[in-house]
């Protein structure tokens, strides 16, 4: 059998444990049997090619999807998608969804007393360029209450879904904003054991990319798994 690449398993502490009692919804939903190691083969080393054909022109500008402008603070969210070896993940679909400026999702199950915005769905898509870069224009989402514990509030966040190049690289995560005082109260953010890994979910204010008198910018780079075979390739030269 020819040697195939494989994707490195992340360092311990990078991903949150499926059983995280502080986040109550994990109680009945986490597997209790140990996961079985699946050697990565063809199915795991390939993935769907989902590109521009899925997109329409305003998909990466969440402020221009209606005839009117949404309420709240307009922001630019941009960055690169890289693998763990620092290589760009090019031409790969990114999907985002989020609450509006008041912390309300346009979803039937979200009914807390904060108004919907008639001009904001909170849903975006884009495809990375050849250097793995992406950009969205959106509204800064608000924090919102949830039922996990008494007076629980989620820090403001944007949900990100990424495909990478292979099934093994699939990732769904959340982007947070710098210095959010709700971090210390949030069991989902704090479910990531490693502090340095937690910081990788926090975007950075980016003054250089900020559009003067128009929109603040935040930079959020996403790192998917790297290639376990890389060191051997380097040795072979």
């Amino acid at each position: 059998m020819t040697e195939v690449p494989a994707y490195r398993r992340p360092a311990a502490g990078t991903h949150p444990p499926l059983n995280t009692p502080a986040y109550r919804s994990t109680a009945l939903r986490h597997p209790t049997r140990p996961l079985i190691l699946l050697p990565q083969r063809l199915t795991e080393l390939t993935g769907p090619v989902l590109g521009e054909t899925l997109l329409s022109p305003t998909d990466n500008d969440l402020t221009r999807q209606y005839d009117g402008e949404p309420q709240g603070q307009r922001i630019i969210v941009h960055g690169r998608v890289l693998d763990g070896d620092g290589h760009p993940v090019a031409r790969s679909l990114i999907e985002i969804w989020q609450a509006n400026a008041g912390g309300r999702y346009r979803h039937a199950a979200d009914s807390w007393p904060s108004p919907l915005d008639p001009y904001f769905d909170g849903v975006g898509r884009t495809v990375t360029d050849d250097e793995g870069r992406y950009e969205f224009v959106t509204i800064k989402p608000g924090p919102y209450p949830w039922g996990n514990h008494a007076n629980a509030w989620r820090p403001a966040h944007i949900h990100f879904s990424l495909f990478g190049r292979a099934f093994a690289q699939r990732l769904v995560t959340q982007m947070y904003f710098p210095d959010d005082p709700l971090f210390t109260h949030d069991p989902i953010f704090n479910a990531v054991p490693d502090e340095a890994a937690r910081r990788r979910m926090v975007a950075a204010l980016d003054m250089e990319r900020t559009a003067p008198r128009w929109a603040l910018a935040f930079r959020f780079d996403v790192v998917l798994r790297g290639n376990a075979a890389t060191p051997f390739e380097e040795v072979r030269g």
Partner: protein
Amino acid sequence: MRLGETPSQTVGPYLTIGLAWDEGAYVVPEDTAGAVWISGTVYDGAGDTVSDALIETWQGPDVHWTRGVPGGGFAGFGRCPTDGGGRYRILTRLPEPVDGQAPHLDVSVFARGLLDRVVTRVYFPDHELANGGDPVLASVSDERRRTLLARQTPDGYAFDIRLQGADETVFFDV
């Protein structure tokens, strides 16, 4: 250069606004010869159905995939949120045996309460011989292997997913 990976986080309860696709369940068009429905229900550890999960299927490269082009579908990839009864369904063609393995689909399950996706595989009961030689099935105990086998139904196959409990589905560390 080595970079640390971005951690996973839950899709949360409102995933459908961002991740539901109109045609996501159709890996192949409805009139495709040999198309089968793979359908099932997702259960939690109390035996209750999970109505806010998302199922994604991937079945690897296949010379027969012609979609994923303008006006087409998803090139071997299926996606379906569960409904109010915890049910999902995907229309596809049975994969070929590949890479020394029996025909299978890789499945990701996302949901509120899942801080990372969980991954399982669907195998097919009518490929008994190939299943017998499959290295992944061989790595699973006899007692739990049946959780990876779909059941035949009039329009295809049924594959239920039990996140926790006595009949917990086998999940893999990819």
